């Protein structure tokens, strides 16, 4: 396995005539947490959704350039999009538990992937909830509705839910934007632990969060990748003035 897991070259994302990403070049390294920061509407989420091809669901979506994941161009015509999305689990800004039980939420993706049998599913659900840091809180009420959980618990459920699909990558789109500091801390703890088995891309509008957990950080602005580098470097000695301005809160 090479050190570079995702190789993005000249990526532009269009929706109809509107261009949201401008010729990005970016590498994601295996088992790192790559933080992506930037003001609203800078293309951070669009970038994530280009990686798992969720942008395909939007009418008029079109890309230029290439994204190569594990040596394969994911926009090649013979790519199985369903397979691809299993490989890149995604957690969204608002926790979206499906209207079913906690157990069934976690088992949802696994069932789609063809996992059958009560004992297998039981073990998988438990393992995923443990990794997501939620098991202790819900182990006695797996059959209750996931909608009854608190916001922070729901978000950890969403994390556990993608882990049950056994992805290689975890994409997080501002996962803690609606959560209290303690829930945020729990999620960040889980991410640090998960890093050893997964490659993680964390989009966040909280620059301090990137500083806390990301190995490298990329700064997006208006659909451009301004710069990317080791987190410590980006936060202490950015090479671009715009990065410095953003981190100092001069705009955004």
């Amino acid at each position, binding site marked *: 396995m090479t050190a570079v897991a995702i190789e993005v070259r000249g990526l532009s994302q269009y929706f109809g005539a509107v261009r949201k990403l401008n010729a990005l070049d970016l590498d994601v390294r295996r088992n790192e947490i790559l933080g992506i920061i930037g003001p609203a509407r800078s293309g951070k989420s669009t970038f994530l959704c280009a990686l798992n091809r969720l942008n395909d669901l939007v009418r008029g979506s079109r890309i230029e350039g290439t994204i190569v994941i594990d040596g394969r161009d994911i926009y090649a015509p013979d790519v199985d999009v369903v397979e691809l999305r299993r490989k890149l689990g995604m957690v969204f800004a608002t926790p979206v538990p499906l*209207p079913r039980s906690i157990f069934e939420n976690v088992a949802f993706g696994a069932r789609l992937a063809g996992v059958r049998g009560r004992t297998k599913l039981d073990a998988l659900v438990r393992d995923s909830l443990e990794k997501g840091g939620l098991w202790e809180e819900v182990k006695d009420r797996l059959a209750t509705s996931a909608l009854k959980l608190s916001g922070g618990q729901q978000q950890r459920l969403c994390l556990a839910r993608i882990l049950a*699909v056994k992805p290689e990558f975890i994409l997080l789109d501002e996962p803690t934007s609606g959560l209290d500091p303690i829930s945020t801390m729990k999620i960040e703890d889980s991410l640090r632990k998960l890093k050893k088995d997964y490659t993680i891309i964390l989009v966040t509008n909280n620059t301090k969060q990137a500083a806390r957990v990301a190995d490298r950080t990329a700064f997006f602005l208006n659909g451009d990748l301004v710069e990317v580098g080791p987190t410590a470097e980006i936060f202490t000695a950015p090479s671009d003035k715009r990065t410095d301005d953003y981190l100092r809160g001069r705009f955004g």
Partner: protein
Amino acid sequence: MKRLGPRVEQKVAQTTLWVMTLVTVGVLLFIIFFILRRGLPVLSLEFLTTNPADMGKAGGIFSTIVGMAALTALAILIAAPLGVGTAIYLTEYTWGGPVTRVIRFGAECLAGIPSIIFGLFGFILFVTKLKFGWSILSGGLTLAFMLLPTIIRTSEEAIKSVPPAYRTVSFSLGSTKWQTVTRVVLPSALPGIVTGIVLSVGRSIGETAATIFTAGSALRMPTSIFSSTRTMSVHFYILAREGISMSNAYGTAAILIIAILGINIMTYYLMNKFIRKYS
């Protein structure tokens, strides 16, 4: 004219709305009370379980209950899958282009056509052209066409009200479009879809004009879907219209009302149970 103060205005508005509600509920209760008072004394187990005799002057209404049930069941069996399928296609599989709009507009126009026109259409197509004769089959098909627009419309609304985020999440977890539709969208939309179907059952039970043209008005017990039959509403219409037996007519009407009330109450009960289970 002097303006009323906001407090007085509020009082007047509240009273007016209260009276409006009272009138609506009052009319409904009056109709139910009126029918039941005249119909209930006629009702007995015998009335329900014997076939009409002497044109309906004597005997019960058993064959008309069977006719109505068969016709409604057939109509729903055809219209529900077709309608729900169309609604799924329109909402989930198209981008909402001109074709979708034309289909939707067509369905809406269809909903506004008087039922007697459907009856005439069914008579020409099914009864004469396709030679099904006056039969449960002709009647069921005609009713199905009549119910389709309502079922499409209500199902579409129910499907559209499923949060888009559910779909995104389902796709992101590696589901195909069809899996998303069957495992996420439909379970969430089911209460709305079923409500539409139940409304259609009620409409089909009460329908007279479309069925008299296509299913006929034979009083004997139907033996197959090619038998002509008389539904309860048609039976009521003929008994009252030809002055055969007013008391039996009211008896039939009472059963009709009780049946529709019963179906509605049962559905809401089941729906509540379902919703509690899934949310």
